[in-house]
Structures are given as structure tokens and as C-alpha cells.
């Protein structure tokens, strides 16, 4: 009848975990965190959280993953709560893959145990940087700008504007 070990202690060394942030529109993985060698992992909006999620619906300290009694637990911390299958939970043991939402309006995340997932990770993991895929085609920009600025109206406008700004400056 031994009490479970106090939270965050290493009964046996915690297995690494994988946490993914899912896209609200298509469920794609937007960001992946792989964390090993820790028994307590913080999730929140605050800088310094192990899993930092910049979303207005995420509390500064929203939740914690705690390794306790040989398994991982998801523990709610902020006021916004955690939802699993649309049900609000305070804490829940994580035996394998679990999808949860940070607050009723917040982002959806997925918890996985490291190793168990390595095989499908390769196809799932897109990792953060969707940013760099937006590129500006400079030649196209110059073309479009050129077509507009070559027009007589634009040149007139340019002249007028220059004059206008001079006038406004001298009386302002």
C-alpha cells in the first residue's frame, strides 16, 4: 500500500515524450517538441515554458506533463483548463497517444511517447518553419510595379504628391 511517489520524482527514468501542436484547420503538425531526461514539462504561453505556445487562449502556465508512478500525467494548471474528447479534465494519465486541447477555444496538441512513434513520426513531423515557404517573386513585383508607374496618371500623381507634401510641411 505504498503511496505513489511524490510528483516529479524518478521512480524509473522517464521515457522521452513528443508533443505536437496541430493546425486548427487541417490537423497537420505545426510544431514538434521532443523532450527527454525530464520528469516535469511545462506547457504555456510564458517564455521559459518547456513547451511554449503563443496563443491568446493559452494561459501563461497552462498545464504540466508530470512523470509519476511510472507513467506520464497531464495536469491542468491555468484557469482555461484542458479538454480531452471535448471533456474538461483536471488530470489524466497518458498511456499512449492522446490528443488534448488547451482551453475550450485554444489549440489542439498531441502527446506521444518517444520511440513508440519513431516510425510514423517521419511522415507526421513537419516541424515549425512554415514561414519560409512564402517567397516574393521579385521579377513579378517589378513587372507589376513597372506597369503601374509607367502610366502617365501615375507620374502626374507622383508630381502632385511631392508638391502636396512640400506644401503641408511648410504650413505644418
Amino acid at each position: 500500500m505504498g503511496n505513489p511517489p511524490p510528483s516529479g520524482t524518478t521512480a524509473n527514468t522517464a521515457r522521452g515524450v513528443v508533443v505536437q501542436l496541430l493546425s486548427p484547420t487541417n490537423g497537420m503538425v505545426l510544431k514538434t517538441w521532443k523532450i527527454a531526461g525530464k520528469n516535469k514539462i511545462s506547457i504555456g504561453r510564458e517564455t521559459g515554458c518547456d513547451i511554449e505556445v503563443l496563443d491568446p487562449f493559452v494561459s501563461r502556465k497552462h498545464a504540466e506533463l508530470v512523470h509519476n508512478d511510472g507513467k506520464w500525467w497531464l495536469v491542468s494548471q491555468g484557469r482555461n483548463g484542458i479538454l480531452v474528447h471535448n471533456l474538461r479534465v483536471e488530470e489524466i494519465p497518458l498511456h499512449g497517444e492522446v490528443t488534448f486541447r488547451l482551453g475550450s477555444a485554444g489549440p489542439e496538441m498531441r502527446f506521444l511517447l518517444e520511440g513508440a512513434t519513431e516510425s510514423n513520426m517521419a511522415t507526421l513531423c513537419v516541424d515549425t518553419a512554415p514561414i519560409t515557404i512564402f517567397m516574393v517573386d521579385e521579377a513579378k513585383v517589378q513587372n507589376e510595379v513597372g506597369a503601374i508607374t509607367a502610366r502617365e496618371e501615375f507620374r502626374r500623381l507622383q508630381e502632385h504628391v511631392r508638391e502636396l507634401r512640400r506644401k503641408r510641411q511648410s504650413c505644418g
Partner: protein
Amino acid sequence: MSKIISTHSFRGGTGKSNLTANLAVLVARAGYRVAVIDTDIQSPGIHVLFRLDPSSIKHSLNDFLWGRCSIQAASYDVTASAIGQVDESTDRPRLFLIPSSINAGELARILREGYDVSRLNDGLQDLLSQLRLDFLFIDTHPGVNEETLLSIAVSDSLVLIVRPDQQDFQGTAVAVELARKLEVPEMFLVVNKALAGTDFSVLKDFVESMYRVDVAAVLPLNNEMVEMASGGIFSNRYPEHPFTRELKRVAERILKPVPQPIA
């Protein structure tokens, strides 16, 4: 001295009207007389956000510019619905909405008939002085057309709203170049509808280096805003929301005087 600010985006749906309305409210609340010219009446425009009944709109900016009505007839005091009760014995804050029906066709005519930018400018200067405005926002049509160019031309400040999206990025680059050629004294970008999970500071640096224009804020896609569905002013309903805090930073930026070129 008063300041004219144009808000612009390459496409519709970027949040331009919502952001403009919120910024106008936040600036007015700081103790100023503010007006918004709504040129985007077709799509749910700013009048919806301010709960102005379209059937009560009898005159527009055009009527004033053409001398067909007084500015009082073309401007609607929305202070009560946008800000609430104000001290009647002082004249600040105040917020006005000026509907405009300047459309591409009419503009083409204006340009053809020699209604040049100076006259539009004079009209707007009259508006500024008659309503004793401190700030005038122009919610422009999406895309680059004559109206956008005229708006940019008469503005002291241009706020470009861009979503993290390929088409927006490409189209905004054109607007940035044209604004440079029109020598608009101040220009900055607001990234709206950024997805959670994007690293906002990385996105900001990326956008700034791409356009060589400051990013005043990266605003997240926000579920409460989606739910409001343009049913009101977000910063009024959620004054403490992190999203509102970010908007306030943009408003503070607008409150600063226009940088003057060194003559």
C-alpha cells in the same frame, strides 16, 4: 497637426476593417477626435462594426467632396456606440464614421476629368478642419487600384495588413514598392491571422527583412474574433485580452507624430 492613416491589404478578408475600427477606437479613447472613412461598404464594412444602420446613411464623402452636402451631413457621430458615454462638456474623445462610395468607376472619371489628388487632398483637409480631427483613418479597398494610390498619396501613414499567406506576401510587395515611389512618410506592416505554433518573432524578422518595412505587430488568428464575426469592436468586448494589448501597441505607434523628412 492631424494625421491621415490609410489601412490597406492586397486581398479582402485580411481583417482590415476590424483592425481599422479597433485602432480608431483605441486612438480615440486615448483622448482624440478621430474619423474613419469607410470605402469598403460592399463587404461587411465598418458601419456594421459600429452598428450604424445602412438605411440611415444618406450622404457620403463624395457628396461632401463635390459640394453637394455639408460635412455634418456626411459624417456620423458613432462615439456613443463605439466608446460609450463621454463628457459632453469637452470635445474629446469623439469618433466619426464617414461612408464613402468612391469606387473604381467613379475614380476613373475623377482622374479623367482632372479631379486631381490636390482636390481630394483639399477636401480631406477641409474635413480635418471642420470636424477638428486629430486622426483620420481611411479603410481602403483591397488591391492596388486608383483609389488605393490616391489614398496612399494623401496619407501621412500607411498600415499594410498581411496574412502569412503566399498571395498576400506577393501582392503586398507591390503595394510597398508603390508606396515608396509615392514617398509616403511612414509605413508599417501588421501581420494578422498568424497561426498558433508559428514562432511570432521569427515571422516578424522574416517579414521585416523581406520588405524592409517595420512590423508593428504579429496578431494571432483568434477564436473569439472569429466568433464575434464582425458583430462589434473586439477591444471593447475584450479590453484585457492579449490580442487587445497587441492592438494597443499598434495604436501607440499611430499616436506618434509623423516623422518629418529633413529638408
